[in-house]
C-alpha cells in the first residue's frame, strides 16, 4: 500500500520541486529587496529569513527520521528505511547550515561567533547525533537489515534524548551566569512575517523534494547493488552447475 502511495507522490515530485523553487526565489526577493530592515537589528535581520526556516526544517528532518524509524521497526519496509537514511542526510546538511547561518547572524548582532545558548548547544548536539547516525550507517553495510535496525534504534534513543539535553543545558546555563545577551527571537512585525512565511514554505517544500530525490537515489543504489550481486551469483553457479 505504502509503495502505491509513494508512487503517487513521486508523480508529483516535479511540482513540489517547482513550488520550492518559486517560493524560494520569491522569498529571497521579498527578504532581500522588498522588506524593510529591522528597527533594532538593521539589515542583518535578513539572515533570519534563511536561518529560521533552516532550523525548522532540520527539526522536521529529524522528526521524519524518528517516525520513519518506528515505522521501519514495525513494518520492516526497505523503502521506509531508505527514507530515514535520506532524511538523516538532509537533516545533517540543514542542521549544519542552520548552525553556520546562526553564527553569521550572531557576529554582527551580539559581536560573537558562538554563545553557549541552550538552543545553540542543542542544535550542535543534534548535529553530532546525526553525524553519528550517518557514520553508523556507513560503517555497517555488510547486512542491510541489521544496518537499518541499528540505525533506527539509534535514532529513537537520540530523539528521546534531545529534549532532555536541551532541558539540562538550559538549567546549566541559567545556573552559571545569567545570559548577558538575550538570544530570544526578535519580535516579528507583519512586514517581516510575509517573507519569513514564504521562505519557510519554500524550505519545507525543498526538503520534501530533496527527500524524494534522495530516497529514490538510495533505493536505486541498493537495487543496483542487488542486481550486480545476482549477476555474480549466476556466473558463479553456471561454473559449478549440478548435473542430475
Amino acid at each position, binding site marked *: 500500500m505504502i509503495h502505491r502511495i509513494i508512487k503517487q507522490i513521486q508523480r508529483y515530485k516535479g511540482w513540489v520541486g517547482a513550488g520550492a523553487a518559486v517560493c524560494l526565489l520569491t522569498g529571497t526577493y521579498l527578504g532581500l529587496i522588498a522588506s524593510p530592515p529591522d528597527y533594532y537589528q538593521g539589515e542583518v535581520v535578513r539572515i533570519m529569513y534563511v536561518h529560521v526556516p533552516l532550523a525548522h526544517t532540520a527539526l522536521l528532518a529529524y522528526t521524519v527520521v524518528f517516525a520513519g524509524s518506528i515505522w521501519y521497526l514495525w513494518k520492516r519496509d526497505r523503502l521506509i528505511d531508505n527514507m530515514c537514511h535520506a532524511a538523516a542526510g538532509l537533516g545533517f546538511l540543514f542542521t549544519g547550515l542552520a548552525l553556520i547561518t546562526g553564527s553569521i547572524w550572531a557576529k554582527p548582532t551580539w559581536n560573537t561567533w558562538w554563545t553557549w545558548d541552550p538552543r545553540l548547544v542543542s542544535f550542535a548536539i543534534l548535529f553530532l547525533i546525526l553525524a553519528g547516525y550517518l557514520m553508523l550507517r556507513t560503517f555497517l553495510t555488510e547486512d542491510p537489515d541489521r544496518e537499518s535496525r541499528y540505525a533506527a534504534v539509534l535514532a529513537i*534513543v537520540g530523539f528521546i534524548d534531545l529534549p532532555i539535553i536541551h*532541558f539540562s543545558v538550559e538549567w546549566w546555563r541559567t545556573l552559571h551566569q545569567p545570559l548577558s545577551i538575550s538570544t530570544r527571537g526578535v519580535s516579528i512585525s507583519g512586514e517581516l512575517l510575509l517573507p519569513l512565511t514564504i521562505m519557510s514554505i519554500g524550505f519545507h517544500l525543498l526538503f520534501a523534494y530533496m527527500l524524494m530525490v534522495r530516497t529514490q537515489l538510495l533505493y536505486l543504489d541498493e537495487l543496483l547493488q542487488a542486481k550486480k550481486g545476482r549477476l555474480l551469483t549466476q556466473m558463479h553457479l553456471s561454473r559449478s552447475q549440478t548435473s542430475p
Partner: protein
Amino acid sequence: MSFIKAIRWMVWKDLITEMRSRETLVSMLFFALIVILVFSFSFSMDHQAARELLAGIIWVAFAFTGIIGLGKSFLAELHNDCLEYLQMSPAPKGAIYLGKMTANFLFMLLAEVVLFPLFIIFFNLDVVEEIWILLVVFLLATEGLAAVGTLFSALTVQIRAREVMLPVLLLPMVIPVMIAAVESTRGALNGEPFALYSQWFHLLGVFDLIFTVVSYWLFELILDT
C-alpha cells in the same frame, strides 16, 4: 522467576570471567590513572583552581574509563560467536540486557570507588562530610552511563571502527548525565548547601529511569532480529 535467574547468571558469568582475566578492570584503572596524571600535568593545580576544575576532571576521567569498560563488555561475547548463542537462547533479551548492565555498572562503580581516593590524595580534598552525597551522585550517574552505554556497546560491537564509534555515539547522548554529575559533584566538593544542587539529582533520576526503560525495550531489537 526465570527472568531474575537469567539476570543472575549473566552477572555471574561476567564476574567470573572478569575475575579470571582481570582484563576490563585493570585496563580501566590504568587508563584512569593516566588520565588523572595527564590532567594534573596539563593544569598547574594550585588549591583554588583545583576546586573549580576538579569536578569536571573527575567526570571526564570516569566517563572515559567507563567507555573503556563498556567497549570491552560485548567484545567478550563476540569471541566464539557467543553473542549468537545469547540471541537464540530462550532467555528473555531484557534479562540479558539487565544482566549486562548490572555487570557494567558494577565494574564502573568499582573503578570509581578505587579512583576517587586517588583524587582525594592528589588534590588534597576534604570530603568527609559530603561523602554520602558523592556516593549517591556516583551511583545515579554511573547507572545512567551504564544504561545507555550497555545498549550502545551492543550496538557498536559488530561494526567496523567500533573503538571510535562507541564514544562518538555515546558521549552526545549522555551529556545530561555529565552536566548533572559535574554540577552536583562541584556543589558537594565546594561544601554548598544541598538544596542548591538537589535539582541535579532529579535530572539524574529521571534520566536513569527513562533510559533504563527505553534501552530495555530497544535492546531486543539490537540482539534479536
